[in-house]
């Protein structure tokens, strides 16, 4: 995939080196895959169709035509609780930045998708499990407010293990904050869509993820409120494999469509055409 200018600026000299690990194994079918082939296929296993968890910038690059102007990228996490367990919270965050190549669990900004200007937010599971702390809450809120101000449709890709424990109640309150911003956006008649990717749970699924006008999901994505382990411990039995998958949610009337990653861009554009 060609790397656009905004992304080159963002990644600096690391732009190419992320592909350095040459081979990777599909966790579902076991096929050994050449990393470049995998990213050329939008991180979908060419053999079995397994959707790998995507890096936020790769996702944006896949969707956005030209330039992407970030919102809230200067907002970085603090340590409001002074959290320490095996490591301090700031040390954990440094590790997440290193591992994910992004500064927090969501990247937000304005860009065009097939000519439609949109406000786009993309969460990334590789940063602290995509958990929502104050930075994720603030960036998402800024995005929703900017969309409202500029009368733009807003699309958010979710990937989250829920609220971020290390920020305690500050994290939980981001559910209230983002919801308040969604309320205003929708009152003003803006179109709001979410795309739920693997996994979307807890504080994110129980706030803005399920407050959208249209909710899409990627195939086999795990989506729910309570985590699978919590439910299994509560009911003391194993859950069926299909439980809490995107397909399960579609069947139970909780989402609008399950869309293969290759068809996501065209599907989003078709939806945007109805709302202009």
């Amino acid at each position, binding site marked *: 995939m060609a790397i656009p200018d905004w992304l080159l600026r963002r990644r600096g000299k690391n732009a190419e080196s992320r592909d350095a690990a040459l081979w990777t194994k599909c966790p579902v079918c076991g096929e050994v895959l050449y990393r470049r082939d995998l990213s050329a296929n939008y991180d979908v296993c060419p053999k079995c169709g397994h959707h790998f968890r995507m890096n936020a910038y790769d996702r944006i690059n896949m969707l956005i035509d030209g330039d992407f102007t970030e919102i809230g990228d*200067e*907002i*970085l*996490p*603090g*340590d*409001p*609780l*002074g*959290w320490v*367990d095996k490591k301090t919270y*700031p040390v954990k965050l440094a590790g997440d930045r290193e591992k994910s190549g992004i500064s927090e669990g969501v990247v937000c900004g304005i860009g065009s998708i097939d000519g439609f200007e949109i406000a786009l937010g993309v969460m990334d599971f590789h940063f602290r499990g995509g958990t929502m702390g*104050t*930075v994720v*809450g*603030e960036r998402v809120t800024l995005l929703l407010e900017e969309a409202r101000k500029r009368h733009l449709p807003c699309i958010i890709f979710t990937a989250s*293990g*829920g*609220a*971020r*424990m290390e920020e*305690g*109640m*500050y994290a*939980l*309150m*981001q*559910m*209230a*904050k983002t*919801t*308040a911003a*969604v*309320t*205003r956006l929708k009152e003003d008649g803006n179109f709001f869509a979410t795309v739920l990717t693997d996994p979307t*749970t*807890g*504080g994110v*699924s*129980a*706030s*803005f*993820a*399920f*407050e959208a006008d249209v909710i899409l999901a990627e195939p086999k994505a795990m989506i*729910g*409120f*309570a*985590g699978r*382990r*919590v*439910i299994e411990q*509560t*009911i003391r039995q194993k*859950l069926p494999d299909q*439980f*809490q998958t995107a397909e399960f949610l579609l069947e*139970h*009337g*909780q989402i609008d469509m399950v869309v293969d990653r290759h068809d996501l861009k065209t599907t989003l554009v078709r939806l945007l055409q109805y709302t202009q």
Partner: protein
Amino acid sequence: MNGGNVIVERERGLLEVERRIADLRSANINQRVDFSAEIAALEKKYETLQRELFGSLTPWEKVHMARHPSRPTSLDFIAQFDRFDELHGDREFRDDPAVVAGFALLSGRAVMAMGQQRGRDTKENLRRNFGMVTPEGYRKVRRLAHTASRLGLPIVTFIDTKGADPGIASEEHAQSEAIASCLYEFTQAGVPIVATIIGEGGSGGALALGIADHVIMLEHSVYSVASPEGCAAILWGDASKAEEAASRLKLTSADLQQFGIIDEIVGEPLGGAHRDPGAVIATVLGSVSAAVERFARSSPQELREARYRKYRRIGAWQTERQEDVGLPIR
């Protein structure tokens, strides 16, 4: 089910002294022998013991206080309103007894009262699912919050839950959407909302009734992003480290007032709210009523605007440590 509650265990020692005082008192009356000195000594011992046991509680002890089987529940508070007429059902599927709601009169003003309701004994706990609300319960909350907003009735909530119900049926019936829609309704309601955390406030399942213009917390109640057991399981894969999680989560009323996440603390008698429930409930209802009257002076638009600003502020920008690490302040 309430076995292992550290507060209940401590109370056993006190109970023994209480019994001896009562025995001496009745002997004093019946036998015309003067035990006053002994009684006074025992009473003094009782007081010292009580202060030792309950004078200062750790976060983990507060978690147990919040879960104490005799702690007043939502219905105990609602029963002290001037009037209450419970309303039922989500209009879609069923009525969830883990949350109660209905019209009520508080100091002569009509309001909509609601709260998660745990059982006061094992049998009631089974019926009420230990106060863990299912999607149907949240849809009842959303429906009646909407009704209240439409009719101009202030909403008064009581929060007391470990968290939302984590069951198969709840996932099938869209627990996430049910909670999200409560949050949505509460941010939008054009009437005063006053919430009180009376016991345990756990996770999104608690927050679903918690977006409010004024948030009160009983001194020894707790409010956290996840239950300490849940937090320990999520972070360390070991629910038995709950005590450590409780001390890290900053879930006490004093912490949360300092963070600006709650607005008011109502004190409890030594030993907890259940030692004198009548007085505690009266104080809480006084505070709730005062807050309702204060916000009732605002228009629906002003209320929504002020609530937006209140929640908009919570987060990174208001923590002191943000400045320490040199982050931009707006």
